[in-house]
């Protein structure tokens, strides 16, 4: 091989460089503690389902509510809920910064739900995008 004395150390250096983050985070505990609502015990589904699938559930909700006009969700226990991000989810999880953002920021996702949907059904004024750009930008 031509120039092996440059290419092989170069490849080794490159591999070392891309594995630095992996090595850096090896053995570290990944833990996020979102603040749960104090006055409610149960979410619409159990915690594990919500953790794994809340994005799929919200996606299904939006299609079923807007496109099919089907606005009532029946959970695994047979309880009924209104399909609404602001009026159902956010009326319990009133503080987006302490619940949603803690996870989303840690895993580096920036859903743009809040560009349109309100943070709580109790807020007085809409929150302009400028103030949200860090949390909800895309």
């Amino acid at each position: 091989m031509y120039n092996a004395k440059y290419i092989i150390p170069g490849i080794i250096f490159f591999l070392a460089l891309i594995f630095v983050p992996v090595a850096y985070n090896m053995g570290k505990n990944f833990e996020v503690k979102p603040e749960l609502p104090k006055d409610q015990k149960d979410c619409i589904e159990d915690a594990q389902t919500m953790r794994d699938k809340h994005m799929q559930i919200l996606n299904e909700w939006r299609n079923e509510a807007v496109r099919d006009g089907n606005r009532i969700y029946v959970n695994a226990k047979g309880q009924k809920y209104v399909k609404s991000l602001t009026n159902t989810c956010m009326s319990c999880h009133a503080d987006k910064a302490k619940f949603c953002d803690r996870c989303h920021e840690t895993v580096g996702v920036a859903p743009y739900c809040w560009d349109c949907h309100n943070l709580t059904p109790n807020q007085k004024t809409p929150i302009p995008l400028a103030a949200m750009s860090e949390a909800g930008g895309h």
Partner: protein
Amino acid sequence: MKNTRREFLKLAAVSALGVGAGRLGFLGDAPAHAGALPTVANFEEGLKAKHWGMAIFSAKMTPELIEKCRTACHSEHNVPDIPGNKNIKWFWGASYEESFPTEHGHYLSEDVEHRQFPLLCNQCETPMCVKVCPTQATFQRPDGIVMMDFHRCIGCRYCMAGCPFGARSFNFQDPRPFIKHFNPQFPTRMRGVVEKCNFCAERLAVGKLPSCVEAAGGAIAFGDLADENSDVRKALREHFAIRRKPDAGTSPSVYYIL
């Protein structure tokens, strides 16, 4: 006075604190909207129809009443109040000539000539906007309502070009700073999304009539066009009514009683 770097950093830290505090301002907000949250029971008694339609008693529609209906609609749906030609319209008033340009109404009676007509999305039976939408963001429900799925809108504005009634508006900018009467229970829109009247689909779902119908106090009849005994069919049976731009071939579901 000369600023040292240390002083500048201190000032920057204090400013950052202030900006941070400003962002948290919404946390202490009290409930603004008097209405309680709609419950599952409300949604179970939602109104159903084969084909929603509207008949407007235009003689009863004064500019004041149109303004009242417009305010009711716009504050219910967080429609921003943007001055100039970037404005967003869900419900608005216009003259006879603007409303019925294909009627060629020469020598009109004074009364009709000077009348303001309330305009809104006509919820057409064969909607042009639905045909041209490349993402199916605008679609027709089985009950005739031409809905917008704001999530899917890519802002291409084909629907605005397709709509013969100018019933669609485009958000050229973030609408949130321009919302005067805010309803926290209804979402706002974002920049780059087309919007229009949705026949209050979210109100029909909880068993309420559209907010303009409620605000008009009897000047707008609303109901199922497929049902002979509905309010709207009764109004159309007893009065002469016209639709806007019949030659566009879209068959509006909004009728104007002259």
